[in-house]
C-alpha cells in the first residue's frame, strides 16, 4: 500500500476517480458504457500520439512536429487512396511509411547537427506543415472512398442502449489498444526499450555502457513518426474529412496528457500506464465539463490547474523522500 504512494500514477488515478464521482453526481449520463466507449473511440487519436510522445520524453528529447507529420501522412494517404484506390491496410502502411520517413529526418537533424530537440522539431513542424500547405493549397478532402468510411464503423462487439441505439468497442479503439500493448512490450522487455530509458537517464553513461545512441534516436523519432502516421489515419477515420489545418495546434494537448501521466521533460521517467491515465484524465475533464454544462473555455483553465497541481505534488513527494536528516545525540 505504502509502495503505491511512491508512484505518480497513483495520484493521477485518485484524481480521475474523484473527477468521475463529481461528474457522475451532476450528470449520471457520464458513467455509462455508451459514453465510455464513445470516449475511448474519440480519444484514440490523442492516445496514439501520446504513446509516441512518451517514447520521446523518456529518451530525454521532445517532439513538437508530430502533428505536422500526422497531417502530411494523412494527406498523402488520402490523395493516394482517392487517386489509385486500395484498401485500409494500404492506407495505414502508406501513412506509417510517410510518418517514419519524416521521423527519420528529425532524428538525423538532431543527431548530426546536435540541435536541441525542441528547436529541431519546431523547425520541422513549420517546414513539413508549410510544404503541405503550399502543395495542397490548403484544400480540404471530403470524397474519401466508401471502404474507408465503412471501416470506421466496424465494432468489435455491439451493444444496444435503452433507446435502441447501437454502440460498442470500435475498431479504432482496438488499434489504440494494440499500439499500447506493443509499445509497452518494447519498453519493458526489449534491450531497445531499456536503452531508451538509459539514454534519457544519462546520454553519456548510455554511450559508455555500449548503447548506440544514433540507433536509439533513429528508433525513437521514427517510432514517433509511425505513431503520428497512424494517428493521422485514425483522425481521418473519425471525422471522414482531411483538412490540412485540423491537427496542427494539438501538440500541447498531447504533451499535457503525457506530462500529467508522469513523464518528465528532463527525460528518463515515464510509463505507458501513466500516459494512459494522463489521456484518460484529459478526456474525462473535457467530456465531464461538457456534460456538466460548463463553458468549454473553462476546459483550458482546468487542464492548466491540474497539470500544476499534479506535477508540483509529485515533485514535492520526491523532495520529501530524499531530504536528509541528521540524527542528534540525546534527542
Amino acid at each position, binding site marked *: 500500500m505504502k509502495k503505491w504512494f511512491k508512484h505518480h500514477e497513483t495520484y493521477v488515478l485518485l484524481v480521475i476517480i474523484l473527477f468521475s464521482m463529481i461528474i457522475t453526481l451532476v450528470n449520471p449520463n457520464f458513467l455509462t458504457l455508451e459514453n465510455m466507449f464513445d470516449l475511448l473511440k474519440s480519444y484514440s487519436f490523442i492516445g496514439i500520439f501520446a504513446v509516441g510522445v512518451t517514447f520521446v520524453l523518456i529518451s530525454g528529447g521532445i517532439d513538437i512536429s508530430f502533428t505536422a507529420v500526422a497531417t502530411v501522412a494523412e494527406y498523402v494517404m488520402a490523395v493516394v487512396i482517392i487517386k489509385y484506390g486500395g484498401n485500409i491496410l494500404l492506407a495505414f502502411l502508406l501513412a506509417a511509411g510517410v510518418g517514419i520517413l519524416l521521423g527519420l529526418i528529425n532524428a538525423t537533424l538532431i543527431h548530426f547537427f546536435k540541435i536541441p530537440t525542441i528547436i529541431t522539431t519546431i523547425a520541422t513542424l513549420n517546414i513539413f506543415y508549410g510544404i503541405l500547405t503550399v502543395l495542397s493549397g490548403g484544400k480540404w478532402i471530403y470524397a474519401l472512398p466508401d471502404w474507408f468510411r465503412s471501416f470506421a464503423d466496424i465494432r468489435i462487439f455491439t451493444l444496444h442502449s435503452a433507446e435502441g441505439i447501437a454502440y460498442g468497442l470500435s475498431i479504432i479503439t482496438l488499434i489504440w489498444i494494440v499500439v499500447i500493448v506493443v509499445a509497452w512490450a518494447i519498453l519493458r522487455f526489449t*534491450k531497445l526499450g531499456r536503452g531508451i530509458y538509459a539514454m534519457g537517464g544519462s546520454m553519456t553513461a548510455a554511450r559508455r555502457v555500449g548503447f548506440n545512441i544514433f540507433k536509439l534516436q533513429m528508433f525513437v523519432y521514427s517510432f514517433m513518426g509511425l505513431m503520428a502516421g497512424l494517428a493521422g489515419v485514425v483522425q481521418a477515420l473519425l471525422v471522414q474529412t482531411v483538412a490540412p489545418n485540423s491537427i496542427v495546434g494539438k501538440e500541447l494537448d498531447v504533451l499535457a496528457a503525457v506530462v500529467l501521466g508522469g513523464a518528465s521533460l528532463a527525460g528518463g521517467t515515464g510509463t505507458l500506464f501513466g500516459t494512459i491515465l494522463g489521456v484518460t484524465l484529459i478526456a474525462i475533464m473535457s467530456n465531464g465539463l461538457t456534460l456538466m454544462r460548463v463553458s468549454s473555455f473553462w476546459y483550458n483553465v482546468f487542464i492548466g490547474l491540474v497539470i500544476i497541481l499534479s506535477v508540483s505534488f509529485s515533485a514535492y513527494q520526491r523532495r520529501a523522500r530524499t531530504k536528509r536528516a*541528521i540524527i542528534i545525540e540525546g534527542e
Partner: protein
Amino acid sequence: MSDLFLSMKNISKRYTGVQALDSVDFEIERGEIHCLVGENGSGKSTLIKIISGVEQPDDGAQIEIEGQRQHHLQSIDSIRKGIEVIYQDLSLFSNLTVAENIALAQTIAADSRFINWGAVRRIAESATERIEVQIPLDELVTDLSVADQQLVAICRALTSDVKLLILDEPTTALTRKEIEALFRVITDLQTKGIATLFVSHKLDEVLQIAQRVTVLRDGKKIGVFPSGELSSEKLTFLMTGKKLDYSHYEYSAQSVQPLLEAKDLSKAGNFKDINFTLLPGEIVGITGLLGSGRTELAQCLFGMTQPDSGEIRVLGEAVHIRSVPEAINLGIGYVPENRLVQGLVMEQSVGKNVVITIIEKILGALRLIDPRKRKESIKHWIEELSIRIPSVESPVQTLSGGNQQRVVVAKWIATDPKILILDGPTVGIDVAAKSAIHEIIRKLARKGMGIIVISDEVAEVFHNCNRILVMHKGRLVDEFRAAETSEEEVQSCVYTVR
C-alpha cells in the same frame, strides 16, 4: 609469460595546441593495486581514456594486454579484455533501479534482443554477494547515498570478467568511513586477482592503498615508485616539481572583540547546543564526518536557515539573520560546499561571476551598472587572487577546478566580508591549486578577517587553522589548538566511534 596485465609504451597524445601525453610508458601487473597521480592537466585522464579505448594514441604507441599486441584499441575491445572504468560521475542511470544498473552492461552484451528480468536480478544478486555488500536492489539509484552509488558502479563492473578496474577519483564525495569500506572492497578484489588502477588527489589515500605509484607531470612520466619509498611530501614534490610549505598558520592576537559568537545554537534535526567564538585574524576549522551537521551550521550562520533557539552575535551584538542579503550586510561571506552547484553561474563569464555579489557597489547614475567600475573591480580581484584565464569573458565552466574555486572566493571577498565561511574550499582540486587557496585564506586572515574553514580533511584544517572544532552528530564534541595538538590526535577524535 610475464606477470604484466597491461603494458603501454611510447604513448603520446596531441590535441590541438596541447601535448596531453608525451611518450609515456605505463604498466600494470596482474592483481596489482596501482595509483596514478598528477595535477590537473598532467594527462591522467587522457591516459585512462586511452586505456579504456575512448581515445586513440598518436602514432608510434605500443599497447599490449596480457602479452597480446593491440592495434587501434576501441572501447569495446578494452571492455572485452576485462578493463572496466568507473568514472568520477559514476555513469549510473539514476532513473533505473539498482538491479538494472548492475546488470545493464551484461544485458547489452547478451545476444538476445529481449530482457529477462529474472536474469537481471540474479546478476545483481551475485555481484553484490561478491563484494559482500547490502544494497536494496529495487531502489532507484537516485535515492541512494553517493557511497552506495559507488558500490553499485563497482558491482556493475564486476558483472563482466573484469581483470583491471579503473577508479577515477573515487573518494571525492566519500567520508573517511566510506573510504575505508571502499578500500576493503579493493583489497578483497585483489585477492581474487583483479588489478585496480586508482586515480586520486588525496595523497594519504594513495599511500595507504597503492603498491606502486606512477607520477605524471605536464604529460610526461616522472617515474613509477613502490609506495613504501614515498611520503606525502615527496609525492607532492614529484607531482608539482616544487616543495610546498606545510607550516602552521600562526595566529597573532589582533583584538579580543569577537567577530562572531554562537551561543547555545540549536536547530532540530541539524545541530544542537553550539557554542563558539571567532576572533579577528583567526582561522577556525570545523571538521567532522559528512552528516555531522557542519554544513547545516554554516548555512544557518549565513541566514539560509533559521535556528530554533540560541543566539548569534556579530561584533558583540545579537542578530537575527533572516536572509542571505542580511548576512552579507552584516559582513558575512559564505563559499558553499558544492562550488559547481551553489557558487557559480557556470555558463556566464568570469567577470560577471566575480561582480555578482557587489552589484550595488558598481552601480552608476540611474542605478545602472557602470561599465568602468565593473571593469575595475573585476580586474582588481582577478589580480588579487591570481586567477589564470585567457579573458574575463571566458565562461566559468571552461576553467580548471582550482581557478573556479578562486572565482568563488573572489566573488565573496569582493563583498568585503569581516567573516568568511568556507565549506570544503579545496574539494576536488589538485595539490598546487589547493596550496594557493590556502595561501589566500591565510593572507585574508592576517588582514584581520575571521575565517571558518569547514572540511573533512583533517590535514587541511590542522595545517591551516589555529583552532579546530570537531563536530559529531550535530554537536561540538571537542576543540583543539593547532599549535598544541597533533594531526593524529584530531584524526582519532573525528573517527572515534561514539
